[in-house]
């Protein structure tokens, strides 16, 4: 026992200070793809063919990318680096599905500073703890690793008052992974119904948002919204622990009635 204690102490503090402070690794992680603002005419329909999941659409005056469908394979970034680029930083989750389509109408960028200030004050203000129930609705298995990573000493979500629970009766947040396999829709709905109000649903990952590469399929519903009402969307294939953490903080905002229209 003493041997273990010493080993733990010798390591020092390894925990990130996100969201109070930016995190170097979180900032450098390729979390999403963005459309590069360009003066050139975008009406090149071949850009849409680059994407294996149909996330890119070309309109007469602009190119749109739906992060809810994007699996961040980077094929468009490699083929057309003047049109697409990787976006770093954890802040990719949204409380509106439509907001995952970038660039948003009328704006090319996102007010990241404002968003981060919101996250910081939110965490400071949040005195109550929240309990999270995870359900896998047809994931590829990698999402579960990233969700579990939130409990490791680096992310240590307990420091923010976030706890994982086995019982839906204790849960405030339902964190759902996977493309929405037909077999899991019923158990997922049952879990949701067993949770007390108020409750918030987080769709964790591109698969949970749209079915990703797995959809269309005779055995999936193309995302978990088929079974439960989703409040927070976290893109990524799989989403990084930082993106999941930001999604959970957004869910806390929704719970406390402070959801920003992002």
């Amino acid at each position, binding site marked *: 026992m003493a041997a273990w204690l010493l080993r*733990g102490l010798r390591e020092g503090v390894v925990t990130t200070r996100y969201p109070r402070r930016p995190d170097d690794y979180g900032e450098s992680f*390729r979390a999403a793809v963005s459309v590069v603002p360009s003066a050139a005419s975008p009406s090149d329909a071949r850009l849409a063919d680059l994407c294996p999941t149909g996330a890119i659409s070309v309109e007469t005056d602009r190119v749109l990318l739906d992060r809810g469908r994007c699996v961040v394979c980077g094929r468009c970034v490699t083929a057309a680096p003047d049109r697409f680029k990787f976006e770093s930083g954890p802040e990719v989750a949204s409380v509106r599905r439509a907001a995952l389509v970038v660039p948003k109408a009328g704006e090319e960028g996102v007010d990241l500073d404002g968003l981060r200030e919101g996250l910081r004050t939110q965490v400071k203000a949040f005195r109550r703890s929240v309990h999270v129930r995870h359900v896998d609705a047809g994931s590829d298995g990698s999402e579960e690793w990233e969700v579990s990573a939130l409990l490791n000493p680096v992310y240590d979500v307990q420091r923010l008052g976030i706890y994982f629970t086995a019982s839906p009766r204790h849960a405030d947040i339902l964190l759902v992974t996977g493309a929405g396999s037909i077999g899991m829709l019923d158990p997922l709905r049952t879990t949701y119904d067993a949770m007390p109000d108020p409750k918030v649903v987080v769709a964790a990952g591109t698969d949970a948002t749209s079915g990703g590469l797995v959809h269309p399929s005779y055995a999936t519903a193309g995302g978990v919204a088929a079974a439960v009402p989703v409040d927070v969307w976290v893109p990524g294939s799989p989403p990084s622990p930082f993106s999941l953490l930001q999604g959970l903080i957004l869910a806390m905002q929704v719970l406390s009635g402070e959801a920003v229209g992002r």
Partner: protein
Amino acid sequence: MSAAPPTVRLAPDELAGAVGERVAGGRRFAGLVASGDDAGSTILRAFIAGGPSFEVVETELPAGVSEYPSLTPSVPAASWYEREIHDLYGITPAGHPRLDPLVLPLAGTDRAHPRPGSSTAVGQLTLDRSPLPAHVTGEGLFTIPYGPVRSGVFESVEYLVESYGEDIPHLRTRVYYKHRGIERRFSDLRIRDGVLLAERVEGTASVAHAVAFCQAVESLTGVDPTPAADLVRVVHLELERVACHLDSVIRHTEGSGQAVAYARMSLHKERLMRLRARLCGHRFGRGVAVPGGVSGPLLLEPADALAGIEALEEAIAKDMAVLMQTPSFLDRLRSTGTLPSDVAEIHGALGPVGRGSGVVNDVREDRPYGGYRLLGVDVAEPEPAGDALARQRVRLEEISSSFSLVRRALDELSASRAEPTWCRDMPEADGLGVGWVEAPQGELLYLVEVRRGRIIRTAPRTASFHNLALMPQAFRGDILTDFVFIEASFGLSMAGVAR
């Protein structure tokens, strides 16, 4: 890469005899996959391990024929494969002892079958609430359904524990909840999109799946990756193995309440995932393998990568040494979940599950491919005890041999002076290719059929699927509280089972 596998074609009623003869002769049954076409005929292919490739024993069931003599009575390991084919193709193996649905629900069997390989219309699955009937009957016996929603962050699966309290005389698994119809989804994809989907069949073994898929495609064209590209693949494959094995250890420490060990091992895993991301831009190594090689060089200089790997290796080894002397940890694993050697041998158990019961089937050694032909492999010594502790020991040895392979691969990469070709041009080639990789869970086989640049059929045969059928056999004399250790020590991915 190897040429097309040696193939024997037989009449449907000769298949069971031919496969049974080979297995009786000491060769290993490695799987059975089906492939349908639009005209309604179905080809069944049994893979037999032995020699430098896998022998394929196949038979064609013409349209209208939906029955053939079952392999299972003479080759019990074929049982799950035949159940799955029955689900997906509506083909009945006559004489199969227990043809319960496996990947599809119990109800609604009247819908059109998915028949991967064909492009005919498929009936959308429907919700199903029917319970499986109990198998064991007797006074005081009851069934505990455990899942599909689990108590913790786990993949969904339902275990049906038939018990009279603590002992578990019988266990069944129901995997259909996670069935995503992946094999049918491969149909008609372009090859480069197929790689992306392969990475998502079993997401924790993304690199292994991508490489096995690519090797199957490469075997069609006859174009091998350059040695440098092969070495980059080895680096990612072996780091993926370490990550999966660490995950199994983490679940053991969590289950046995070793809070500090749990925190330490989770920290090591996080650092490893970050190192993997620094090497390729993705924490799970996605996007690395492409047909013809790899998408690019390692993103770290070999010296920097080596420094990171050596630091990690040392930290893990030190903590593992303490863990393997912590009695409260060892007590939970010792004599828990014993899989008898003879059962493992007959079934052809794969990966750490097989090795933990004294059965060594390592495709890196038996049928070397890619960078392993250059580097060689020190396959972990078998641990004949068959319990969770033996499987844990095997994993620890594999972690150290994986690190050693990564170091050697990095040495070779830094020794080459000229800028190598990372990806060779692939000519278009039609046909049926087979690729194999020793994934973290064990031998992974890919069958890929291509026509005019499009995928006709992709059948990933995962070690998770093959080994999960063995799990009930490991419950002899174990009680409910041992469950977590048996499951974690098998280290399987349900995504790879249900697909």
